[in-house]
């Protein structure tokens, strides 16, 4: 199982060997074809869940203008 690709787009991360062995056992027969693909999947899931909430990118004035249009079009009362 080639875990690391010789490609600038990938990097090597060390994890404890027993953990790696556990993961390898767990992913047998699943859609994951390597330890890396599983770890990537899990990390993407975690990162997307802990990303900071960004505020809406528009000002109060902007929002009022939008509300005016929505009222004019009948979307808001």
């Amino acid at each position: 199982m080639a875990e690391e690709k010789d490609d600038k787009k990938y990097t090597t991360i060390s994890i404890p060997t027993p953990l790696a062995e556990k993961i390898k056992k767990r992913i047998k027969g699943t859609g994951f074809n390597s330890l890396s693909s599983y770890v990537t999947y899990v990390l993407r899931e975690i990162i997307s869940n802990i990303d900071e909430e960004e505020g809406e990118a528009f000002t109060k004035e902007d929002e009022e203008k939008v509300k005016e249009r929505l009222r004019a079009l009948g979307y808001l009362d």
Partner: protein
Amino acid sequence: MPKPHGGKLVNRQIEKPIDTSGLLNIEINTNLSEDILNIANGVFSPLEGFLCQNDLETILKEKRLQDDTPWTIPILLDVNEKNIKEGDTILLKNDETGVKATLKIEEIYKYDKKTIAKEVYKTLDTNHPGVTNTFNMKDKFIGGKISLISSKPREFDEYNLTPKETRVLFKEKGWKEIVAFQTRNPPHIGHEYVQKTALTFVDGLFINPIIGKKKTGDFRDDVILKSYEALIKHYYLKDRAVMSILRTSMKYAGPREAIHHAIMRKNYGCTHFIVGRDHAGVGNYYGPYDAHDIFNEFPDLEIIPVFFRSFSRCTKCGSVVNDKICPHDQKYHINFSGKKIREILNNGQIPPEDMMRKEVAEEILKFKDPFVK
């Protein structure tokens, strides 16, 4: 409300007029001009322009932008022009949409169209409309950020909300969880069943028809909009459903396009997206549930797909059912055949009430010719 895809709602609309005299003018087709509008108003967030080669490559190989953000459909600007070079700013124009936008050329490159077609559409069969469109592209691609200067008013603008507007609308309505439904047809009872089933578990329903170029025999855009208005008026709670259009071309890329459709609805502020059988498919190029399975590759998509398999009317249950809830044999099932409904309407008749709401059918029949010729 979910944050926009990539974290920030893109706005590439120029506030003040700029001097474009002296810029090379390039006429683009309507589809490309609609891509520009969708980039400028954030429907395609986080894209700020047409793709450069590095992003195209990762999209084809990994279904992601170079920064690892999920993205499945290449948004490309193809040109023939010879008198351009990297670093130039050009003016892109289209008469139909009135789009005028500048583009600062970051990269000019060529890419094997067969590779694009094979990766995006999973076939090289030229009977697939997406493959043909790819092969018909011009030979050079330009990557770079766009800035929209202007566009002109168009038919159905009163139904056309930007992501910024839908986000304000959902907030004003007090909706936290919103399910999006994409459509290209007037609603029959099966569609209503799917929408209402999903709506039961969230705060609001966002009906988002795709408007634009259609095939002969398809329902006209105005027919679709009026028929949905009738459905909403008579069969939905006023504060639980809204409709707004999306102007974008269908690529018929099946599973990849299902992800793209979900991303656009996330940018509109939706938390859930309904994915049906053979979503965005054409012919037999994709398995019926490929567009469901592909979501397993994206734990970081941040919009929840709501999968529906087949649904039909069961004469034994006496209601609309799906394959998870009805134990009865197929002989008791009546499928919602779009073709059959079309035939009945084409004869000027109202379909049976268990196929289509009377109010919806009546609205369609108000049109002398409800179909694209």
